[in-house]
């Protein structure tokens, strides 16, 4: 598949996931926290294609979710940082890493990116005016846990084959 086709396919997937996140995934909230399917895909993109594409897709998805949600600046900042952090776990083409090493790298990327993203978001926005300990528990802790769980499920269902074939 050509590079341009791949880029456009990824951008389309990112836009579709942003809409899916907004209308479907965010409705399954527990104590106000929910998983972020867009973050999971940014992590996958960064691990598969590298730090700069990861950041670019992060920024793009931040633009889409920002326009949909009304927090353009905060969303773009959060998603860019998520792509940047996940990019540190980039698995290059032809890597000799074993299957379990690749899995660990993806999981670490998912956990750290999600944690960083939720932390940045929580520092800037507290719309429910939650007391600080609850804000940290729900907006950072619980949201990171949900996103990481979704990342694990997505790895087992979709990303495993793609990442192991590199």
């Amino acid at each position, binding site marked *: 598949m050509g590079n341009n086709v791949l880029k456009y396919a990824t951008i389309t997937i990112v836009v579709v996931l942003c*809409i899916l996140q*907004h*209308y479907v995934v*965010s409705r399954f*909230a527990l*104590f*106000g*926290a*929910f998983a972020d399917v867009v973050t999971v895909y940014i992590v996958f993109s960064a691990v598969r294609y590298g*730090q*700069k594409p990861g*950041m*670019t897709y*992060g*920024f793009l998805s*931040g633009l889409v979710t*920002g*326009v*949909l*949600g*009304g*927090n*353009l*600046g*905060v969303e*773009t*900042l959060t998603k*860019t*940082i998520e792509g*940047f952090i996940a*990019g540190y776990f980039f698995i290059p083409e032809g890597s000799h890493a074993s299957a379990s090493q690749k899995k660990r790298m993806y999981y670490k990327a998912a956990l750290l990116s999600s944690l960083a993203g939720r932390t940045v*978001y*929580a520092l800037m*926005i*507290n*719309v*429910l*005016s*939650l*007391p600080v300990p609850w*804000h940290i528990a*729900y*907006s950072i802790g619980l*949201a990171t846990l949900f996103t990481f769980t979704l990342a694990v499920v997505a790895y087992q269902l979709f990303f495993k084959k793609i990442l192991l074939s590199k």
Partner: protein
Amino acid sequence: MTKLITFFSRNNAYLLLFFYCGLAGVFIRYQDTYSLKSILSAGTEFRAAISHRISDVSIYLSLGEVNENLTRQNSKLLADVIRQGNTIRETERNGQAALFMTDSPVSMIPARIVERRFNTRENLLIINAGSKQGVEEDMAVLTPDGIVGRIIQVSNNYAKVMPVLHSDFSVSVISDSNKTQGILRWNGEKEQIAQMHYVPLSSSVHEKEKLFTADFSTFALRGIPVGNIVEIVPEKRFYRINVELDVDFSSLTHVLVAKKSTDPEKVGLMQGDADEGEHNPVESERGN
């Protein structure tokens, strides 16, 4: 020069991060400018249009409950009409009808809630009435039960509402029997309980007193029901007053949007005063 190019090529991921974060910073800093607002307004229009279709289905499935609510609201309105008719007649008898004539006629725009979000990342309502229907920013949103919130963004056919249950919302309120005034805000702890602030210990205030929006409010009409006082705790200088809200946000489906026609001269004067007074109600409402 070569060193500079080498530096850029080695650190270009950081530079890209810096560039994107810089752009994000610009978006945050200038989010209230017209151009960004119009982009966000287009986003709201798109988002609300999809939500509208989704909510059509769920509303169709819950028509029975909606009818029940409408019947209840109608009966309450009818009761209000009768009560107000009696009051007007009584007042005319006492020769004080002029008191009511000072209020300008109120026109309400009915709307349906097409999207509602109460989570840690968003806390807002979207209604299916926008600038085409006459909705403007800073209009009050209410139901016959009480105040719901304030319009914060308007697109052609939709508008975003900041509900009472938002950390940035505040409104001037007054109690019905003692005429005690204060600012109503929500502290985020309980869904149905908000707090009335800046009530000095010298004020007379009682539990179960009913609160209404006050005339000082810059966006809400005078006399919209707000809630009942359920707890009064004296603190150092002011009372801490808990108010049980009249509106049940969990079952909101239809709302009314009302415009307050405040004399601009009065607003200007109050804003001028607000700059000087720390606890001025207008400042508190506008400051958020």
